[in-house]
């Protein structure tokens, strides 16, 4: 797997091969929340994983962290620097979490233990994986708080989370996540709960720190704008599958998949003048019985008889990949 589109050299730190997740729902049925995702994240690279609610992007994050709800079944490979994490014993997985792979999740107010001092929550991340004294952990935690931009970190170390603003709390969460210089950071909607000017600060900080430490980031978001701001590459998810991936520049300038195109066009910010926004008719398919062929076909303006069969994955001109029959034709003609 040598095909990486990231700009920052270094090998792939995280590789997903044909990863599927099935989650049990009531009545003995299963929902295929993630269906055969293949994706890589290189060191110091930020890959955006974008899609609407229910597309499986957060489940994918949970599968990588090994933190899915009980009873979920994962198939395929999750490789961290080449080591398959699937089937790892719980204790071995625990040693990796927070050390080699870290998580920043959506709501900073909900991520922190409300009864613990914020500094102790950063120090805990260190002591979970490093055999250091309390004092050393504390000093390092204060340093980390300073790095993420908490003013007067020594004094604020002992404050409980509720004395911080949302943006400051997310800085603390980032400090704890990056405490052990992880190879991979899963950032699951890290700025969705924040105001837009604060969002810009946090995204800037996140990119700055991870590029510096060489951490690869999988940035899960519903916001294409956020992807454009900080990501190097992007994967677009629809109904549990990645329908298109490539560099941000390529995908945003020349979206290949009809879903990607529709999603970009329905953004009011992109569509400057009044007049109706293009909309996507219909609904997301029921993933307890996913369609056999292309999952977007029922809503696709360019659907065709062939779309009843699973679409092939085609290399695009810009080096990305798209799963759509339309490009099968173009690719064949080009040949």
């Amino acid at each position, binding site marked *: 797997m040598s095909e990486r589109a990231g700009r920052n050299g270094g090998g792939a730190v995280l590789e997903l091969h044909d990863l599927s997740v099935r989650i049990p729902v009531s009545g003995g049925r299963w929902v295929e929340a993630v269906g055969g995702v293949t994706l890589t994240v290189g060191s110091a690279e930020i890959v955006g994983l974008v899609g609407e609610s229910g597309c499986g992007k957060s489940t994918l994050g949970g599968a990588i962290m090994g933190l899915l709800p009980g009873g979920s079944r994962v198939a395929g490979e999750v490789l961290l620097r080449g080591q398959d994490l699937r089937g790892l014993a719980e204790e071995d997985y625990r040693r990796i979490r927070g050390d080699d792979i870290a998580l920043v999740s959506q709501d900073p107010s909900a991520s922190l233990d409300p009864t613990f001092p914020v500094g102790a929550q950063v120090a805990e991340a260190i002591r979970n994986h490093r055999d250091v004294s309390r004092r050393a952990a504390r000093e390092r935690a204060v340093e980390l708080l300073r790095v993420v931009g908490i003013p007067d970190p020594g004094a604020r170390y002992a404050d409980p989370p509720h004395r911080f603003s949302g943006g400051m709390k997310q800085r603390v969460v980032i400090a704890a996540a990056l405490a052990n210089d992880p190879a991979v950071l899963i950032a699951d909607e890290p700025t969705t709960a924040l*105001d837009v000017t604060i969002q810009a600060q946090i995204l800037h900080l996140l990119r700055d720190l991870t590029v510096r430490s060489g951490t690869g980031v999988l940035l899960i978001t519903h916001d294409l704008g956020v992807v454009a701001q900080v990501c190097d590459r992007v994967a677009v998810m629809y109904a549990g599958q990645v329908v298109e991936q490539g560099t941000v520049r390529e995908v945003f300038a020349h979206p290949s998949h009809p879903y990607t195109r529709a999603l970009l066009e329905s953004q009011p910010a992109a569509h400057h003048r009044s007049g109706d926004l293009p909309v996507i008719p219909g609904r997301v398919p029921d993933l307890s019985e996913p369609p056999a062929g292309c999952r977007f076909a029922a809503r696709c303006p360019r659907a065709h008889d062939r779309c009843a069969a699973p679409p092939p994955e085609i290399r695009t001109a810009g080096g990305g990949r798209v799963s759509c029959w339309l490009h099968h034709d173009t690719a064949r003609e080009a040949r």
Partner: protein
Amino acid sequence: MTGLLDVRGVVVTFPAPGAGPRRRRVHALSGVDLSMRRGQTHGLVGESGSGKSTLARCVLGLQRPDEGSVVFDGTEIVGLRGKALREVRRRIQPVFQDPLGSLDPRWTVGRSVRESLDAFGVGSALDRERRVKELLDLVGLSPDHADRHPSQLSGGQRQRVGIAAALASGPDLIVADEPVSALDVSVQAQILNLVSRLRRDLGVAVLFVSHDLGVVEHVSQEVSVMYLGRIVETGSREELFAEPVHPYTRALLDAIPVPEPDARLVHVPLPGDIPSPIDPPRGCRFHPRCSLRVDACSRERPPLRPVTAAHHVACPVALQARSQAGTAPVEH
């Protein structure tokens, strides 16, 4: 006379949460003016603590201001009671953010849509039923939806029901508080199109409250930007987006993530946290985060001054810089 709504000097404070001998107050709105014309969509944009939702509640008569006046079509609605209040209510209707929470879970869609018809005793029972079907059709739902419960609908459908319920009494003004922020992008587009169509086809004015400048730009003809309980800039959409003058507006525009290939985040557009509305900064409330700050900013509240006839800004410093430069400092 084309004025529909005239808000003047509205002040709202709340007791700060918690109890104590000296309870402090949250300064939600600190002297806000706003005018709306008939049949126009006015976007009200701001971040948390800006007071935009409180202003919406004042216009709906759900929040009584401590000071100031809200005049709707020539009638002062602050302090209005009884029949007169009901008549104004008939003409100003809300659409809320959370489409699930804004519908009574025990009621059918039909009953929710009919609620204002029942309240104002419009027509016979049969007339109301017919009107409900018309309204559902108007917002793009089928008549069978009338018998369903909110839990059986998708988020977008629920918001359509919310809009149908707001239209039932034939209002002149709809106050929509973050009507699309709980929705996915593709569903959001449908609701935004519906809102635009209502204005176009029915001539309903809309006060559109949102934190999302992109959405506001799409639906509004006039836009007001709020920061910590005050309006810092207001104007026609064209002028405000083409030539934002207030440093906060400009930072906000810079910070918006735009899904375009070259929209990289190169610098932090605005440092610092939003101060607490319990203890807001003196003078210009934006001054602690402002790059144009001069001494006077921390002392005096800057008034809204015209940039052009259709564009006002509460920043003398930016205004002066602009007039000295002769042209607008367009940067983005």
